[in-house]
């Protein structure tokens, strides 16, 4: 094993430079703690608000996780339905594209009006934001099977079910995981956005709710800590997806191969 692994050394250097720049900016413009807290103050806030943040994270995790799983299950099923019927595709797909254009903040506002504050709204928003990338990429993967492979299946008189399960679904997996990765990132963002609108869920707020609370209490260091926690939660979601992607594609797909250089 190499002692100076560039995959570890280089990001560490970047991190040190960034933290240095943070302190530098704060000193240079003489910024007050409630405008820009110092990095060590953010870390102290992590410790001080530890229990609150942990509880808030679990609430956000529940909302994002429920929404994400729903977006995977429903998105994948809808893609299968769309690929098997041209009429369905022509009829529905334009609306899927259209709804994708609605800004998530507007969606969140509407959902909260419709479904009231609480986990159901937060999960719904996380679901909606992740649903479109999954449908778009899965459908593309199901549709973009090389013509010659379809001809080969036709020549051997494969049934539509065989074509779906032995050709189209395996072919769509790399696309599906690309969509799922985007959806995993968005699920946390959607969930936090939802919580900012939907406020407290079951009497205990998620990270989005805590961001609102910390802002109004001028606990800016805790606000930074909560924001960082959102990032970490997002990373862990993506990490889980990458694990499954590697499990499914590791043996055969180029995207799961190590770096060429």
């Amino acid at each position, binding site marked *: 094993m190499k002692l100076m692994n560039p995959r570890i050394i280089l990001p560490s250097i970047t991190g040190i430079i960034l933290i240095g720049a943070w302190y530098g900016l704060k000193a240079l413009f003489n910024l007050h703690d409630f405008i820009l807290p110092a990095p060590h103050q953010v870390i102290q806030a992590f410790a001080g608000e530890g229990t609150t943040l942990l509880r808030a994270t679990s609430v956000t995790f529940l909302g994002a996780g429920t929404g994400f799983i729903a977006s995977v299950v429903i998105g994948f099923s809808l893609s299968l339905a769309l690929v098997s019927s041209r009429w369905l595709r022509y009829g529905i797909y334009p609306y899927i594209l259209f709804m994708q254009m609605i800004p998530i903040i507007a969606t969140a506002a509407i959902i909260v009006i419709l479904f009231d504050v609480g986990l159901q709204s937060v999960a719904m928003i996380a679901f909606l934001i992740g649903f479109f990338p999954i449908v778009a990429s899965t459908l593309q993967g199901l549709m973009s099977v090389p013509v010659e492979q379809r001809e*080969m299946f*036709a*020549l*051997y008189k494969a049934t539509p079910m*065989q074509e779906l399960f*032995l050709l189209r679904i395996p072919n769509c*997996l790399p696309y599906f995981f690309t969509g799922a990765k985007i959806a995993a990132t968005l699920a946390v963002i959607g969930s936090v956005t939802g919580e900012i609108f939907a406020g407290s869920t079951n009497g205990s707020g998620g990270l989005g709710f805590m961001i609102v609370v910390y802002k109004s209490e001028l606990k800016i260091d805790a606000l930074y800590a909560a924001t960082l926690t959102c990032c970490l939660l997002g990373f862990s979601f993506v990490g889980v997806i990458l694990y499954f992607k590697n499990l499914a*594609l590791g*043996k*055969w797909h180029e995207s799961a191969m190590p770096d060429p250089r």
Partner: protein
Amino acid sequence: MAEGPSIQLENVCKSFDEGPLVLDSISLTANPGEIIAIVGPSGCGKSTLLRLIADLLPVSHGCIHKTGTPADPAFIFQDATLLPWATVSENISLPARLKGVDGDSRSSLAKEWAKRVGLKHALGYYPRQLSGGMKMRVSIARALSQFPNLLLLDEPFGALDAITRNRLNEDLLSLHEQSGWTAFFVTHSVSEAVFLSHKVIIMSDQPGKVAASIDNPIPFPRNAATRESMAFQQCVAEATARLHEVLSS
């Protein structure tokens, strides 16, 4: 040993939708067990012709008579068209799987065919771990594993280096000796066409027509030494001259 069907094309025309004619009045005959090589400029409809014979596309006019043994076609594409998520073994036995053959019989079938094409050691490999020539061997094994009696080959060795290509040509002929399928072989290489075929069809383009049909006098069995023979060189020279006539007209 499966006897190949006899294939007779009678004034076959093909156009796509309202588009121009791609193939115009193609008439040709393949007797049982004959290999017909088709050469011609790019875009002259050679691949379309193979798809018509395989029933992958409908003819627009004319007809294709298949007589003798009922035709059981297999197609070998330009690209190996292996499923990247399946191992060599799974790829070879895919046609069997589509026919509902059980797992044990499939794996013994794959083993037998991998052995015949010299890939016994690679049964568990994925396509990305194979060279171009190995992929093409898998594709050949897959096509032949169901004992077809009609083989359609669409420039299968175009992307391979000369040595691998010659080796695969020889392998293909020895497999033909054992089974006697009827075959249509599309290629850009005149010497490959002459080496493999009983008859060389030269096509012209826009629309695709049969410009010349050359009976190949070189006796079977053929092997690497055949390429050195005077008769072979002469036949290649003649076919090349005819092809140039077509290309320049």
